[in-house]
């Protein structure tokens, strides 16, 4: 089942001589449960694409369809609610709220939506992420790897359709990075989610079901490496 599709997705910055085509006519389709790695040199348009897929930016032309809905046909406010309920983000620099505990950071998207918290699910998630003994800790009392695990929890709290991760291991050493990747894989497998990861780490990309390679804003390769 297809969860995400793009149609001629294009993003350009500037005009005239300063015009830069960050992404040109990208057409991709991602199936439910897939783990897709997006690779390419820096400045190739990976992050632009991820931001467009997740509704964080606005394309110059083309559309992004998530669960049958063209997300850029929505108003700004509707899109922000859509993001809160449908997609999870994991960033390189965690972006946790420093005055909230690990557990509060994880449940934040639910609190924002005044949604009743599925306690069993959150407990399960915290257990899977190895944060049982760290629930009450503030972000600055946690290591980098633990902080990133909290942000994975936050991304999964609303049981989103898709989790987008932008260089999730970019700020971690290789041991912690591998752990974070494996946890992301485990959790998306466990909760039937779809994972799109931007990385320039080929070791991480090799774990994916599918690798999309971008160069100069164009998709130059899109192949399944695993079933």
């Amino acid at each position, binding site marked *: *089942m297809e969860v995400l599709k793009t149609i001629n997705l294009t993003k350009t910055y500037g005009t005239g001589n300063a015009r830069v085509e960050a992404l040109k006519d990208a057409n991709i389709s991602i199936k439910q449960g897939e783990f897709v790695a997006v690779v390419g040199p820096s400045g190739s348009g990976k992050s632009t694409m991820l931001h467009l897929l997740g509704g964080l930016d606005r394309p110059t032309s083309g559309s992004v369809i998530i669960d049958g809905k063209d997300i850029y046909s929505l108003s700004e406010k509707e899109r922000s609610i859509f993001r809160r309920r449908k997609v999870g983000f994991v960033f390189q620099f965690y972006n946790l709220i420093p005055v909230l505990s690990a557990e509060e950071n994880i449940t934040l998207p639910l609190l924002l939506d005044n949604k009743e918290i599925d306690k069993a699910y959150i407990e399960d998630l915290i257990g899977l992420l190895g944060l049982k003994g760290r629930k009450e800790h503030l972000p600055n009392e946690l290591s980098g790897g633990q902080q990133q695990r909290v942000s994975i929890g936050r991304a999964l709290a609303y049981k989103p359709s898709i989790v987008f991760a932008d260089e999730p291991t970019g700020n971690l050493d290789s041991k912690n990075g591998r752990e974070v990747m494996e946890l992301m894989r485990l959790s998306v497998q466990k909760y039937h989610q779809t994972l799109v990861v931007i990385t320039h780490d080929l070791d991480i990309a090799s774990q994916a079901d599918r690798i999309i390679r971008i160069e100069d804003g164009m998709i130059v390769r899109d192949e399944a490496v695993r079933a």
Partner: protein
Amino acid sequence: MKEGISSNPEVRRTVLKLSLAMVVLTAIMLLCTYFFWASLNKSMIERDLSIIGNLLDKHPELQGDILPAFTQEGSLNQHKKGIEAARKFGYDDRLPVNLNPLADQYSRKSYRSVLFFCLLCFGCILGIVYLSFKGLFHRVRETASAAERIVEGDFNSILKQENEGDFAKLGHQFNEMAKRLQLTLEEVQSEKVFLKNTIFDISHQLKTPLASIKIFNELLAEEISEGIEVKREFVEKTAAQVERMEWLIKHLLLIAKLEAGTVEFQMARQSLSLTVKEVIESLRLRWEQKTLEVALIENSDIIMSHDREWIGEAISNILKNCIEHTGMGRKIEIELAETSVMTRMIIRDQGEGIHKEDLPHIFKRFYKGRNKLHGNGTGIGLALAKSIIESHAGIIRAESVLGEGTTFIITFPKGVI
């Protein structure tokens, strides 16, 4: 975290409409009251003026007394006199409203406007309540017809969900439910196809050894006079085929049990290293035959909650695969490591490797890659290993370089098992 219904846009809109209506109605009410009193005031002055005119006409000499009588307040004594004088003409404070022309006129006016105002209020409230109920029930009907379409198998009906409030949340959960249904349905469909293929594969797998056994038996029966050596050879060959069938059936049953979820794992916190060591020992004959070295690398004894028999079965299948595909005199390593959140097992061989195009499929049942030279594989072992590991909440993946070897990486999360 429970909250009131005030964050719902429908509630907010209704409250806003009601408040606006109240503001407008109050303004109308105030204006009406103002004009009513202005008009009454005017009528009273005009009546007084007529009386003054009437009196002056008859008694022009009283001009100095009449006018002050209207503008100044009289004494208590004068008041009494007035009452007595007027009573003779039937005019006192018990006079009914309808006999007092001015009061009669204005009371009618005020009854009319109060009635009109009440009707206006009623109409406004009725209209607003009707409109908001209409909106609410429209959404309920939308949900009902979307549910109906889903029952009919059309999963493209999506409810609006990008908004605050309970209806949007209902829409969101409804869409999620529809999605899960669609996914399950698709899974059932592909399961059906898979089952068909599996039955075909199994019968195929069983047919070959069965045919061999049949031939050997026929030969034995025909060539009854042959020497004992030939007979023994046939019997041994038959036994090998029977063993192959037995293995296949046993493992198929294991997979079936696992996937049906009828297996009750005997979970216990115990040494994973010991489990691995037992497997290595049980396969000693196989790897010694090929003069392989099997090494267990571990920093410390790793304790993990698992079912020893089943995990042993999984490791055994992977190890058998490695032994089969690794050349004489080479080495197989099993590495155990743990972090605070997960336990990892890495099984590394120096075998022929797996072709890039086969790698995505090696854990599928009955998958046989381009390496068909080795007739022993049934394509069951790795599929079984994967099922067992996943039912322990773990994941398995393989990496391989042709000619250099294959690495199986198994990860178990600590928090959930």
